Every structure is written in structure tokens, then in C-alpha cells.
């Protein structure tokens, strides 16, 4: 029974990892940018959520109404003001610049919020659970997973059913020709980063309700996000969800066997899949 429980908990945890990963996947898909600062942006969103709950006295989920647009705005400005200038034939400048950004965000959070671990208070949501036969499922993990599925479905719909998604795909295919269609690629990239950081805001707040966080935890979230993206296959959003679930299950099952194995088991699962299927489980067909 422990084992079944671990798998189910792992699947639900995978939803959170998919949310970490979705923004990364989107950014890489549209503009081939690997955002090293992604984990720190998740933590930034968690702190913005904390401040919003404290200042306005609202529930963390209500804080999404503030944090999602703020993060989207930060994303657009960041892309137009900084990251667009790093994009080109060379993949090194965006890596270096986002690495620098990661350091800056961590230190700014350290200045602003200190190194003390913080947590958002979500009231009964944190402890409430639903009994499903012999299993007891936490309401928060269930909600997180449902949000992850909804977010990925919404991103998928945006990508394949809207003019904005067409612009994303066209710009990703061929930047020169997309511009001949009247698309300003700088603006398109700005919108992509805004959308990615809007998703990051959701991920950050759910993270901040689930566990305590401090300015240094971004790196770990970045790794989980990367692993979920690679396991699922680059450029495939549903694959990213599957990748997050595999990572989550590996971690919880590993922790059941030995509490010290949680992170290790996740990384091993990632390495095994990378060795067997270097392109991930569901790489985007064609390309």
C-alpha cells in the first residue's frame, strides 16, 4: 500500500514540476533561449505572493490575481530590455546573461527578504485531504495537479488555436520570414516571456504554499524543470507533464525505499531516460 500511495503522491507532485517546466519549455520552443534564471524567477514569484498576502491580507491563491500580471509584465520588460539583445546565432550570450540574472535575483531577494525560510499561509487548504479508498490525498496536491493540467491545456490551446500561437510557431520556425509577415519578433518574444512568467507565477505560489522557501532554492527548481522538459521531449507540452509526473513518481518512490534517496532517485530516472531516449519520450514530430 505504501508503494501505491507513493506513486499517487508522486503523480500529484509531478503536476508542480510540470508547472516549473512549462515556462522553460515554452521559452526554449519559441526562441531557443535556455533560461538559467527560471528557478529564481519561480522563487521571486513566491516572494511576490508572500508580500501580496501579507500586505493585502488575502489568501495565497487570491494573490495570483496580482502576481500573475506582475510577473507577466516583468517578463515582457525583461525580454524587450535585456534578453532580446542576447539572442543571435551564438547560444552562449543568453546562457551567460540569464546566469547573471539568476545571481542578481538571488541577491536582491536576500537583501529584501533575508535568508530566513518563509512560507505562505493557505489555511485549511494545506492540511485538508480527500479519502480515496485506503488512500488519503491532500487537497493541495490535487489542486496543484488540476491547475497544472489546466495550464498546460491552456498553453496548448494558445499555441495551436490562436493567432498568438501561430505567431509563436512561425517565429520559432523562421524569424526572417515571420518578420516579412509583419510580425515584430522582439514583441513576439516579449509576449512569449510574459506568458512563460505568468505560468511561473502560478508555479511559484503553489511552491510557496507547499513548502518553505528561501532565496537560494531556485537552482533546485530549475533542475526539476529541466529534467521534466528533457524527459518529456523538447517542444511537447503534454510530454512535459508526463516528464514532471515521471520525475515526481521516481522521487516519492525513492523516498519510500529510503528517505535519503528522494532527490537521487529523481536524477537517476532522468539519467536513465536520457541514456535510453536522448530526445526524451515524446519529442515534437518533424521540426
Amino acid at each position, binding site marked *: 500500500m505504501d508503494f501505491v500511495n507513493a506513486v499517487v503522491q508522486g503523480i500529484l507532485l509531478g503536476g508542480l514540476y510540470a508547472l516549473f517546466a512549462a515556462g522553460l519549455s515554452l521559452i526554449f520552443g519559441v526562441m531557443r533561449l535556455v533560461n538559467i534564471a527560471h528557478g529564481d524567477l519561480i522563487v521571486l514569484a513566491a516572494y511576490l505572493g508572500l508580500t501580496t498576502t501579507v500586505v493585502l491580507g488575502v489568501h495565497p491563491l487570491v494573490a495570483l490575481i496580482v502576481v500573475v500580471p506582475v510577473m507577466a509584465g516583468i517578463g515582457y520588460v525583461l525580454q524587450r530590455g535585456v534578453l532580446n539583445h542576447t539572442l543571435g546565432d551564438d547560444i552562449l550570450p543568453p546562457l551567460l546573461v540569464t546566469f547573471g540574472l539568476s545571481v542578481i535575483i538571488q541577491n536582491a531577494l536576500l537583501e529584501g527578504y533575508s535568508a530566513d525560510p518563509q512560507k505562505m499561509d493557505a489555511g485549511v487548504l494545506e492540511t485538508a485531504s480527500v479519502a480515496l479508498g485506503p488512500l488519503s490525498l491532500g487537497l493541495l496536491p490535487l489542486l496543484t495537479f488540476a491547475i497544472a493540467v489546466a495550464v498546460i491545456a491552456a498553453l496548448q490551446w494558445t499555441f495551436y488555436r490562436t*493567432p498568438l500561437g*501561430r*505567431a509563436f*510557431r*512561425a517565429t*520559432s*520556425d*523562421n524569424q*526572417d*520570414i*515571420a*518578420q*516579412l*509577415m*509583419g*510580425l*515584430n*519578433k522582439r514583441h513576439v518574444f516579449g509576449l512569449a516571456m510574459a506568458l512563460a512568467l505568468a505560468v511561473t507565477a502560478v508555479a511559484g505560489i503553489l511552491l510557496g504554499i507547499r513548502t518553505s522557501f528561501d532565496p537560494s532554492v531556485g537552482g533546485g527548481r530549475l533542475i526539476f524543470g529541466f529534467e521534466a522538459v528533457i524527459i518529456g521531449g523538447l517542444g511537447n507540452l503534454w510530454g512535459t507533464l508526463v516528464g514532471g509526473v515521471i520525475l515526481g513518481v521516481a522521487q516519492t518512490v525513492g523516498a519510500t525505499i529510503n528517505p535519503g534517496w528522494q532527490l537521487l532517485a529523481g536524477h537517476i530516472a532522468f539519467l536513465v531516460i536520457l541514456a535510453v531516449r536522448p530526445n526524451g519520450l515524446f519529442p515534437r514530430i*518533424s*521540426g
Partner: protein
Amino acid sequence: MPEPILTLTGLNAFHGDFQALYGVDLEVNEGEVLAIIGANGAGKTTLLRSIAGLIGNEASQITYRGRPIGNARPDVVAKMGLAMVPEGRQLFPSLSVEENLMIGGRVNRAGPWNLRRVYDLFPILEERKAQASTSLSGGQQQMVAIGRALMANPDLIMFDEISLGLAPVIIRDIYKALPGIVGGGMSAVIVEQDITKALAVSSRVYCLQEGRVSLKGRSDAVSREDIARAYFGVE
């Protein structure tokens, strides 16, 4: 004398570090079809890419309806009414046929061209509209590329090597469709290797040789000998 819609004045354009055009003077008149011919490497594609804004130049070297656009961004140029059918089609592989056409209409200019008109011009595209653009034959892909440019309702449309890599029968079909495309007062620039085809559909012709204009004249007035000399540079 009709007013030029597009004027190049002493255009010096670079392809990377390499200068591809040297002081090119050229004008496209309202409503005319202008052919640009020349050997490989003569600078034809650089010329079109410069006009489209994909290669930055001095602002005053290219004017469109009197406005300097030499250093304008390609998306801005597109919204002003210039469209290009690029060499090698260059459709968006992750977009379906219909999506490729729809993205062409994104510039949102008013005019006669819409999905319906494009499908009437190339009925095969309507049958294939949900397919991936890469699954089409070369000729059908060229139809999508042309339709995509038309969806922008441009005032000036530029065709870069539309017959390249296509079967002769397909080339004939596409050229047969051209009058229906440019008949509505649209101006056109056609870059073409096939000199006979280029002269047949155009009213005036320019020949480029090593980045310079080596010949210009009325398409029905230039002689084969003139062209051979301008094309290859032999006396």
C-alpha cells in the same frame, strides 16, 4: 511618366561582410511588373532582402512612396504594403497550409485578397488546407508561398526565383496565374533565372552583373545580344 512606387538610389548593400550591391539605381512604377535578371551571385536576392528590410541599409537609399525605408524593420516594411515570396518558398513547417495563409493576412491591410480568393486562385490548396505545409509538392508549396504574400494585400509584391526547382509544367501553371495576381493594379518585382519567362511577363527589365545594373530597358525592346552582354559581361 507614372510615379515610381519604389526607388533605389545608389544602393550599396552588404551580404555579411561582402559587398553585394554597388550604387544600384532602380525604380518600380505604380502597377508595373518589373523583371530583375542576372547570373548567380549578381546580387538579386540581396536586392530583394534589402527592400524587404531583412538587410539594413542607409535610410535614404530605398524610398517607398516617397518615404525612406532603407533602415526600416521588415515587419514595418510589410505593414506598409510590401510583400515577398522568398526563394525556396520558406513556408512555416509547424503551420498547416491554411495557417500559413492566415499568418500572411496578419498585417491586416484592406484589399481584395482573402482566404476565399486565394483558394479560388489555387483550388488544390483548399483541399489540402489542414495538411502540414511540408507535405505538399514543391509546386503546391510555391502556391502557398504566393498565397501567403497575397493575403497581406500588398501594393508591391516581390517574387524571388519562383520557378527554381519546379517542374516546367508547374512553372507554366504558376506563370499563367500571374496576370490574375498583378492585374488588379498591384506592382510586382520578379527575380528570375529563366530570362524568356521573365521578359514575357514583365514590362521592363533590369539586369544585374556583379552587383551593378548592367542593362535596363523595356522588356519587348531589349535584344538577346544586349542581354547576353549584360548577363555575362562578354563583349
